[in-house]
């Protein structure tokens, strides 16, 4: 692959990374958010503060962690606090500007389900659960979401409200007494979405290079709304691409570096 070609996944990570500012304090979810946040740090936002719920504040890993508590997150952090302190002083204290979440299931209002597929008491699939998400969703200044599009993930009606986005839309957050902005951005492998200022429904504002409206609709379980003016997402720069690929290569080397133990 030449440095001017890129995968939809790379486009997604790099676009998500661009949304973070150098002054942001970001609560990082694992998976896609972690890659995006670290690319931001390694490119345009060297001073962005990355926080993982394991208690590491201001961390700067050289490889992506497999878990949210890998040793390198602590080794490179400004400080590492206990988990109760993390949730009390740092998240609930209102010090986090951006919470960056992934999603197993999401609806058009940015409500997320990572709890169950099917009925809560007799689930078809028991998912991991909310972890930090319910309070990340309400305590962070705003929420960025990143996920790979599919009809299974982007659904008309989620099975369980693990974390609250804009609820039924409009001023639903305010009516529940939530003072933070909630989801303000969703970056998928196909497009960039922002909530409509009135209805709060996620609306496509930018299509990634080579992506059509039909392609976005084909991988989304609700009828997609497009902004009046839909632009094209800027292509990854060669710096962005090489930074991401180097990070992924370092990560792969590091995580396969241990032999399979005899027991776990």
């Amino acid at each position: 692959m030449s440095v001017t070609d890129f995968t939809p996944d790379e486009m997604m990570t790099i676009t998500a990374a661009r949304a973070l500012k150098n002054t942001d304090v970001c609560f990082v979810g694992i998976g896609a958010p972690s890659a995006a946040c670290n690319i931001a740090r390694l490119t345009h936002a060297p001073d962005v503060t990355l926080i993982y719920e394991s208690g590491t504040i201001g961390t700067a890993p050289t490889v992506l962690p497999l878990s949210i508590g890998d040793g390198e997150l602590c080794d490179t952090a400004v400080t590492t606090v206990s988990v109760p302190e993390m949730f009390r002083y740092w998240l609930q204290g209102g010090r986090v500007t951006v919470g960056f979440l992934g999603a197993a299931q999401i609806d058009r209002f940015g409500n997320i389900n990572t709890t169950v597929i099917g009925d809560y008491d007799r689930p078809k699939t028991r998912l991991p659960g909310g972890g930090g998400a319910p309070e990340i969703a309400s305590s962070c200044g705003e929420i960025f979401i990143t996920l790979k599009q599919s009809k299974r993930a982007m659904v008309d009606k989620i099975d369980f409200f693990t974390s609250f986005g804009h609820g039924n839309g409009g001023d639903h957050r305010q009516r529940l007494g939530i003072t933070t902005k909630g989801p303000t951005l969703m970056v998928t492998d196909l497009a960039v979405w922002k909530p409509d200022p009135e209805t709060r429904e996620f609306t496509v504002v930018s299509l990634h290079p080579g992506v059509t409206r039909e392609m976005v609709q084909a991988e989304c379980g609700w009828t997609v709304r497009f902004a009046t003016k839909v632009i094209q997402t800027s292509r990854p720069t060669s710096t962005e691409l090489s930074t991401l690929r180097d990070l992924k290569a370092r990560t792969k080397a590091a995580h396969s570096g241990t032999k399979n133990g005899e027991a776990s």
Partner: protein
Amino acid sequence: MAQFMTLPQAVAENLNAGDTAAFEGFTHLIPHASAHEVIRQGTKDLALVRMTPDLIYDQLIGMGAVRKLIFSYAGNPGVGLLRRLRDSVENGWPNRIEIEEHSHAAMANAYEAGAAGLPFAMFRGYLGAELAQVNPNIRSVTCPFTGEKLAAVPAIRPDVTFIHAQKADRKGNVLIEGIVGVQKEAVLAAKRSVVTVEEIVDDLWTHPNACVLPGWAVTAICLVPGGAHPSYAHGYYPRDNASYIAWDKIAADRDTFLAWMKDNVLDSTPEDFAERITHLRAAA
């Protein structure tokens, strides 16, 4: 005052059938050796508490030791779902466990309240979250000054907490460093505590504000080098990521799981953990 003893003795003396038990460690310092010893001793009917149930709880559940699970995120970190937990919840194999589910913030606050001797924890949480509708232990209190309604959950007060730590000195003072998770709170919230350590030293020689549990606040200390494998012990050995990835396949099938448990747990001893980290120490 902490007593030094073997892990089999510590488990036998401190864990009873029917107990509420916490095994804590937030990705780091997960007490695998203790969980395996519990499985070997065949203690049943446990109510298990843990923010992040992962491999050890998948194993305890799959072996039928568990009656109830109180948790906030049940996954194989960085890999996927817990297949033995799913088999229990979705299919009732080997038994259908009862679930009490919270958010991380709730669990962290509930441990903190337990350590602080309070009956409940209060925090700003669960706003718009559906867990509040399916878990009757999520209630609320009203601020007597502002009128704000805040979430309330019962304090966590385990009968016994198991943790793994880097070291203890000969008076039983325990040092935990790096990602310290909720271990201090989980020990202080519990009636009894069992701490496995990488080594026992003459002096902890650490920072005055490091996370230290005084010996008189701990029940039992057991020397089990490698006792956190395949999680890690900061300063001793790194995380054995390959084992976490491998677990996904092992746990996918009931028979594969049972065979693995026989070979690696039932027919093993706490001493076997030291060997499991030799290649990791070298790599570190």
